[in-house]
């Protein structure tokens, strides 16, 4: 049997670049989309196509800025390249702004099966605070339009920890979100990097000023309460909490993201996209869009870096990614791969985590406790090599 494989397609273009975002994005270059699409097609052609392709994920940026035909071309090229019909999930991230409403039916016809809608909030106060380019009403309309175009698998993103957003505001936002009846929800805390790490895209000066104003108005303790509220609220309404920031109706978990947490092999195409061979090598493309285009057009993958993981690092990644899943990690599976029971290999970290009641050991399973999910980094740091 061939190993499963996954494809990530990065589309960096945005009509409006959000001040809190530190992903690879670029504003005001919509004219370059056709050229960039050609580059994506070319990159898929020159990259190896190992395993059986199972999922495709269009992330951004704003992938919904691509025309349906461009999306179709990418999907078709990938299917042709991997030569199979094993793909069972094709996700596309979309922005719910009316000004950039995509052709939903066209995307569905192109082969997209799942929409991840960047709603962020259904309260206009929050959207205003985040300086988003859409309103709550536009978000509802976009959701309805996607549904009526036969998308039966729609996820929405929500943000908490927004300055000015009280616990009641957050509950109200959750209620309005549930009223849409999404199949999946991702809830993220607003994280504002003032001193961006070297691995993030550097913020524009204006964005940095905005963050500097916002950070003092954030309240860590309130954000913790908002997270706990989301856990209770969504469980009561039939959403299963399956990963730190993800909730799903039964059968609607994101298969593509699951591949990251399970450390399966994936190919990332586009500027700044990351790839993993499923073994020891992680690699990534240049973040600079012009350098990316020039590289591809000269026939080569514009690699910016790669790393070879030693055994300790791979084991740490297995723990760090595995513990993001609410089900945690299987000790047997870990031992099968690394030769030791994680309870022994990380005896000190496990003992510390259990003493502080952030980590739970339950038969074969090692997982974060409810409080541990809020302090995941505190727990994981102890496992670092």
């Amino acid at each position, binding site marked *: 049997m061939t190993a499963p494989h996954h494809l990530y397609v990065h589309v960096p273009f945005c009509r409006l670049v959000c001040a809190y975002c530190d992903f690879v994005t670029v504003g005001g270059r919509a004219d370059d989309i056709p050229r960039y699409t050609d580059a994506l097609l070319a990159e898929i052609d020159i990259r190896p196509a190992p395993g059986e392709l199972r999922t495709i994920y269009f992330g951004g940026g704003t992938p919904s800025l691509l025309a349906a035909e461009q999306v179709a071309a990418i999907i078709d090229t990938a299917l042709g390249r991997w030569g199979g019909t094993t793909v069972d999930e094709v996700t596309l991230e979309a922005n719910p702004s009316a000004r950039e409403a995509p052709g939903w039916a066209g995307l569905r016809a192109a082969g997209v099966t799942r929409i991840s809608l960047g709603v962020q909030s259904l309260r206009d106060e929050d959207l205003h605070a985040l300086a988003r380019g859409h309103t709550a009403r536009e978000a509802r309309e976009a959701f309805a339009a996607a549904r009526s175009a036969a998308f039966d698998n729609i996820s929405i993103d929500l943000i908490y920890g927004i300055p000015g957003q009280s616990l009641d505001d957050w509950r109200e936002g959750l209620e309005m979100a549930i009223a849409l009846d999404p199949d999946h929800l991702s809830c993220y805390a607003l994280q504002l990097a003032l001193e961006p790490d070297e691995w993030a895209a550097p913020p524009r000066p204006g964005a940095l000023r905005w963050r500097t104003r916002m950070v003092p108005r954030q309240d860590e303790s309130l954000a913790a309460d908002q997270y706990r509220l989301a856990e209770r609220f969504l469980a009561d309404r039939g959403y299963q909490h399956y990963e730190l920031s993800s909730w799903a109706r039964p059968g609607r978990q994101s298969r593509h993201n699951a591949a990251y947490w399970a450390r399966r092999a994936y190919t990332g195409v586009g500027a700044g996209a990351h790839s993993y061979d499923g073994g020891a090598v992680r690699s990534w493309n240049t973040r600079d869009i012009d350098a990316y285009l020039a590289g591809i057009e000269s026939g080569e993958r514009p690699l910016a870096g790669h790393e070879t993981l030693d055994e300790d690092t791979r084991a740490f990644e297995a723990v760090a990614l595995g513990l993001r899943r609410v089900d945690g990690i299987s000790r047997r599976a870990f031992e099968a791969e690394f030769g030791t029971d994680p309870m022994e290999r990380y005896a000190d970290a496990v003992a510390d985590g259990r003493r502080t009641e952030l980590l739970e050991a339950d038969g074969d399973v090692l997982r974060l406790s409810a409080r541990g999910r809020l302090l*995941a980094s505190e727990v994981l740091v102890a496992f670092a090599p």
Partner: protein
Amino acid sequence: MIPPERIRNFSIVAHIDHGKSTLADRLLEVTHTVEGRQMQSQVLDSMDLEREKGITIKARAVRLHYDAADGQTYALNLIDTPGHVDFTYEVSRSLQACEGAILVVDATQGIEAQTLANVHLAMAQNLTIIPVINKIDLPSADPEMVMDELEETLAIPREEVLLVSAKEGTGVTEILEAIVSRVPAPAADARAPLRALVFDSHYDQYKGVVAYVRLAAGTLHDHDRIRFMATGAESEILELGYFRPQPVPTKRLTAGEVGYVATGLKSIREAQVGDTLTDAVAPAPEPLPGYKEPLPLVFAGLYPLRGDDYPELRDALDKLHLNDAGFVYEPESSAALGFGFRCGFLGLLHMEITQERLEREFDLDLIASAPSVEYHVKLLHREHEIEVDNPAQMPDVGEIERISEPWVAAQVITPTEYIGPLMELATGRRGEFQNMEYLDPTRVNLHFEMPLGELIIDFYDQLKSRSSGYASLDYQYIGYREGDLVKLDVLVSGEPVDALSLIVHRSNAYRSGKALVEKLKELIPRQMFEVPVQAAIGSHIISRETIRAMRKNVLAKCYGGDVTRKRKLLEKQKEGKQRMKRIGSVEIPQEAFLAVLRMNESAG
């Protein structure tokens, strides 16, 4: 050999960043002492730290051979000087070895306060000053303005001023000519008994102590038996020479010359800066004037972050000690920090530099306690005073009859517009104002007497910030005085942390206690539980703050499969944790142990 009339000994005096190192580089290049292609920027500052901080820590002496316009070849000895208040004594010794000084002033900045102290030192020693305005290539250069300043503040006639761009090499030859024509040749009697001023020294693994000397009289020969007059140390010369800038051995050095003497001595304490080197067989009757024993004034505990590193720290201190006469240390232990060393330094910058050298050159992670001075404590029913240089070791208040502390005479040179804020600063630190001296209509020298303990706690930073960087400071130890002092303890999670204790004047105790716990609240990161921080005098709690428990620390999802970034962020967090000291169950970062230095940032 070059006769004394064709020797010139000079140094360069400049404010930080006014281009001293670039000018020195250029002088070396123009005289072919170092060829352009071998030129590593700023040759004279050979320690990494010096290059980075842009300051010169150890004096250096380089001989330049210059073919002057008069057709003669001259030996020009460039004696480099350190430029900070902690090293004033070293500067004065370096200047003592010269007949002239190049005063470098930035054409865009004008005269700055730090320069003045050194120019005044040079003038007091009757050195010929060659004024140089540097960076005239910059668009914002205003040489006319700077010439006005030189004229007004230092009475330097504008026709003496040279206009230079060290970066582009303009005017450099003119400087060399000015050295030849304006700086007098050294007065030198080669037949008188040998007297050589030690203006610097360093320890070399193979050659022992190498002393940098300026011969005032007499002649030194290879293999002579020599004596250091203040310390009495004797040895036979292993090697004699001068620097170009690498050492060049020679058979002899005569009066007026500058060079080095490798002594084979094992400790730098035997050949200290300011001492006079003489012939052991036919010694001079009198040493050169001005020798001073280095006096450590500032004390702090240095502890390895990881207890296992204690032997490495001890070895590193041993090595540094060989090369730094102003630095002393002895083992001590702290309930909070484990085993470490109590170290004495010449001043705060000296302490900072030493700590950085330990971390960089020896790859040690250190925790430094807040600096302290040495208190003299008279206990009840005891005849003799005891010396306490670590606040944690201060005896209980009930046993103490009286405490005395070291005082200094401080001089603050400042533009007149900052007199108010600086007076307020000094008197707030128990400074006693003595008098005010006008250097010119715009600049004054304020004289204070104040406790050294008050001066070492961020006084210099405050001085700089309240004078927009213009004020300069110098101080001399004047003696011990009794004071109404109390020990302030800090408790974290109810546990006293001895390394955070400090001695304060009773009248300031409440204010200091409050400011300290407020600062600690800022510096100690949230833990998984609530952490009270308290200040106490004896058993009496005078201030309390609470660090709330951490509730949330989780990274967002790995976008587009960027697992590398997420992992590196976790690894970075781990590194941060490893740089903290665990006391009880609380993780305290290194900065917290220096909180006392930053108390005035928020508390004002």
